[in-house]
Each structure stands twice: as C-alpha cells, then as structure tokens.
C-alpha cells in the first residue's frame, strides 16, 4: 500500500545516475599472449601442424627456419627424434594450460571453502583448520609429486593431484584473512539480525566479497603451477612421454644445449612468456580491485 503523497511530507529523493566511468584500460600484452596460447591449445588439431609424435631420424636436430641449415617446413627446428618443435610446443600448451587451470580451480575451491569456514566460525574450528593449513603449506610439492611418480607412476592426474593437494593451503590462508575483516563489517551483523544462518552468510555475503581476491590469486597461481608442472616433467615425474610437455622437452635438450640450442630454448621461452603474461595479468587485476585505488 503506497503512502499517500502528503503523509510523510518529504520530497522524493533524487538518486544520482551512476557516475560514468572511464573505460578500464585492459592490459594488452598479457591478454594477447594468453589469448594466443589458449587459442593455439584449443584449435591445435585444426592447425595443420605436423604430427608432434612423428619421428624422422633423417630430420633430427634440424635448426630453426631462419638458420642456414634449417627449412621453413620446421620453423622452430626439430628435436632429437626429428619431431617438429613448433608443433610440440603448441600441443604442449594444451598440457600446461590444462594442468594450470584444473589444478588452480581445484585448489582454490577447496582452499576458499576452508578459509571461509575458518574465518567465519573462528575459535577452535579456526585453530584446527589453520594448523592443518600450516602443515600442508610446509610440505614440498616437488617431493610429493616425486613420491607419487615413484609409487603410482607419473601421469597428468598425479601432477594435478600432487600440486592441488598442497596449493589449497595458500588460498585458505588468504581468504581466511579477508573473511576476518569482512565479518567485522556491519552488513554481516545485519544479516544475523535478520535471522540469516551460517550457510546464508557465508555463501551470500562473504563469498561474493572474496571473488576479487580469489580472481587475483588464481591468476597469479596459474603461472606458478605451470612452472611446477614443467619442473616435474623436467625431472621425469610429470607428464610421461610421448605426450609433449614443455618441461620434458627442455629436459630432452639438456645434453645438446650447445649444439642444438633450440630444442631447450623454445619450450623454455614458451614457459617464460605464458607465466609472465599470467603474472602481469594478475598484477593488473590486483591493482584494479584494490579499493583504495578505486576511489580516485
């Protein structure tokens, strides 16, 4: 039942139109690089590249196309078994990116859940969860992956599991810290006063307010995971051959690094570019989401 016009004798408030914001200046370099690799990874089968597994002893250690002895049939050269490097790098990006994304998603989902619970309930729940988190954080990832590789055998699943099982702890820590601050704010008290239970407060109020932090963390961590995966593959505890993986490609070129430098260099460059791009993107996201900067 709407109020009669005279009843409250207060003129209707004029709500200002939303202030027009200057368009956000997106970070072009990181997005371009990531876009390129993601695209390449997704449409790899359609690119008409030589089969990454096709060996040709005749073509082994061919240098990149611009070198004297090289040819544009293999623009980045070939490896020990004559396999085309460019093709292997493109196919390898599938592995790296998939590993990065899946691991980070799994770790962040679990870690955020732990952090939200610990931060909201506090007290003993918090203490117990944080001790578990601390213990997890101190366990070396590589060691765990090696153990898994030795006992169960190296595989994509093992890599993802090994990393995720330890990575979640970082998310838990950060999200818990943020939740501790959020929980002090009045709107949480208001939700309680309105009768909201723990589930509603956590999912409806706390979680959405941590999205910004989560996004930044996730982006920064993908780079880290890619490096860990590459390291594991380098050590032979990661993705097993013959699947092309940047880390194992670097390992394969280790012995011939002076003669056939391209075999290790290009996969290394790929790792460098992708990780750098993710880190830059993460930095940009963090700067954009920082509330203090948002004011001005």
């Amino acid at each position, binding site marked *: *039942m*709407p*109020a009669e016009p005279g*009843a*409250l*004798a*207060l*003129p*209707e*408030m*004029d*709500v*200002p139109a*939303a*202030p027009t914001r200057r368009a956000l200046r997106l970070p072009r370099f990181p997005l371009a690089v990531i876009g390129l690799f993601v695209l390449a990874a997704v449409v790899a089968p359609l690119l008409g590249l030589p089969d990454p597994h096709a060996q040709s002893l005749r073509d082994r250690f061919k240098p990149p196309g611009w070198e004297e002895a090289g040819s544009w049939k293999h623009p980045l050269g070939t490896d020990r078994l004559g396999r085309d490097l460019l093709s292997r790098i493109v196919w390898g990006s599938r592995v790296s990116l998939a590993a990065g994304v899946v691991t980070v998603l799994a770790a962040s989902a679990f870690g955020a859940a732990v952090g939200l619970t610990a931060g909201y309930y506090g007290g003993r729940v918090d203490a117990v969860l944080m001790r578990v988190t601390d213990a997890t954080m101190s366990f070396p990832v590589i060691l765990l992956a090696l153990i898994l590789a030795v006992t169960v055998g190296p595989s994509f699943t093992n890599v993802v599991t090994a990393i995720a099982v330890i990575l979640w702890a970082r998310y838990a820590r950060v999200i818990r810290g943020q939740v501790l601050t959020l929980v002090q*704010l*009045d*709107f949480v*008290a*208001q*939700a*309680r*006063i*309105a*009768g*909201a239970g723990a589930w*509603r407060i956590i999912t*409806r*109020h706390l979680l*959405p*307010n941590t999205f910004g932090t989560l996004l930044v963390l996730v982006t920064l961590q993908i780079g880290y995971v890619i490096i860990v995966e590459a390291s594991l593959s380098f050590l032979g505890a990661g993705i097993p051959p013959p699947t092309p993986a940047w880390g194992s490609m670097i390992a394969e070129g280790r012995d011939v690094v002076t003669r056939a430098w391209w075999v290790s260099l290009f996969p290394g460059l790929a790792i460098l570019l992708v990780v750098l791009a993710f880190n830059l993107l993460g930095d940009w996201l963090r700067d954009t989401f920082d509330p203090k900067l948002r004011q001005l």
Partner: protein
Amino acid sequence: MSALLEVSALTKHFPVRRGLLGRSTEAVRAVDGVSFTLEAGTTFGLVGESGCGKTTTSKLVLGLERPTSGTIRFQGEEVGALDRAQRRGYRRAVQAVFQDPYASLDPRMRVGAIIAEPLVINERLDRSARRRRVLELLDLVSLPARAADLYPHEFSGGQRQRVAIARALALSPRLVVLDEPVSALDVSIRAQILNLLRELQERLGVSYLFIAHDLAAVAHMSHTIAVMYLGQIVESGPAEAVALAPRHPYTQALFAAALPIDVDAPRPEVPLAGEVPSPLRPPAGCRFHPRCPHVMPVCATDPPALRPHAGRDVACHLY
C-alpha cells in the same frame, strides 16, 4: 502503554587472559547491572562516552551477545528462555540500524535484494509479493522505485542510511535499535534522517533504542534518556528532565560539554579531572567518585543505588 522491553540487572563481562587451564583472570565489566524499561511507541535514548557500555547493551538487546547474567523481557516474555521458533520471532521484532552507512550494506548486492533479505529469510512470500513490499518500503523512506536496482556505492551516505532503515522495517519490527544512525552523515543531512525516523515512529508506532553521542539529537528524539558510565546507569528519566536539569554530577558535566550553538548561552564549566578509567578495574564504590567534583567519603566505599529523585532516577549519594 505496556512496557515493550524490560531489562533487569543486565550484566555482560568479557573474560580477558585465560590461564593455561582456561581460567579467566580478569574481566572487562562492559555492562554491570543495568535495568531500564522501554515503553511501546517511544524512543529511549542511551548516552555515554567510550567504554560506558551502551554499544554492548544494544548488542545484548539485539541478541548478538548473550548476557552473563540478568534478564531481558520482551513483551512480557523472557528472551533467554525462548525456544528456537520463539527466538526467530524475537529476531523479527527487533531490528537495527548502525552507524556506518558504508559498511552496513553488502556492496555486492543490489538495494532491492538488501531490503528484501529479511523477507527472504523469514517469510514465504513469492517474488512479486516481495517486490511489492520492497517498493512499499522504499516509498516509506522516500527513495524512488528505481533505487531497488542500483548498488549501494551509487548512493550518498544519507541515502544509504535510508536503505538501512528500509531494511530494518521490512519485517515490521516493534523495536529498532539505532546505534549512532546519523553520526557518520553530513550535518545538513542529519536533520532529514532524524525527521524521517520521527515520522516513521508516528506512523508505524515503532519504538527506538537510540544511541548517540550527539546529546542534542538524543534529547530531541527521545522520550526517556539514560546516562551510562562504566557499565552502569547513573541517571535516567524523562528527556527534558535529564537534559535540561541533570542531577548526577557526571550527567551535568556531560551536558555542559555539549556545546550549544547559541553564542550567548550560559556555559557552566563543569571540570572533570582525569580520564575515564578502564572497565577492567572500575573504581570501588561509586565508579565516578575519583572524578566527581562533589565527592564525599561514602562515595569511595558504597556504590549508590538508582533511586527516584526530582522526577527521575539518580544513582548518587548526594540525593
């Protein structure tokens, strides 16, 4: 008029420093034996400086904290003895508006959803009924209907407080706790919000527990005022009596410190020595005695009881 809220010997101690075996060695006596009555349809003003316990009292009334001892009776029923379903009913009947208009609204929710939240949690209305109620509430606080689709950051401080008030009224509560509702707002906006609150009280018959440090605002809005010091009520009674002719030395000092805008107003200087003592170790006897300009020997040993005098209740050995 029946008493809506009756608080008796309400006490809240926060334990500090637990020993290895979990023993608490000291306690912050935030609220120590507070009793008052709030009549339906009126405004009860609670004033005092930092550490006096007014915020803790409001949290106890809201059910955000559980009392260490003492009782709260709402509409005759003891709140502590309510079962789950009845507690829900209490929650609906007692709502709050807080000081900070920037922290009391979830920045990630639209205003319509914020106002509707109590309805979503407590009532089984369908979407359109909820929407109607939200528009009704927006109209009550003089915000346009399109405000429901906007986010909090698109509003000014005063408008956000209106949203907070609309939300507080969603469940048609009997009592709204107003904890410094206008202190964070610009001076020119305060009058608007205070007027709105009064109109709503006249219209809806809702009662207020009004906590503020702006004494003139409290005096303007309240029917009854209680003055707290270090967890206890030192004076309470009708607003005019307490504000214009305070009897307790602390109240006198407090209201003398509330600087009037009137340039020619008499300014009785009531000097108070020292600082407010810590609620961890309040002084013995009358808690105010170390700073009181009229201190007597009995004040250091016997805590005075809250007794009627000159039309209000005062806790002071002078009377």
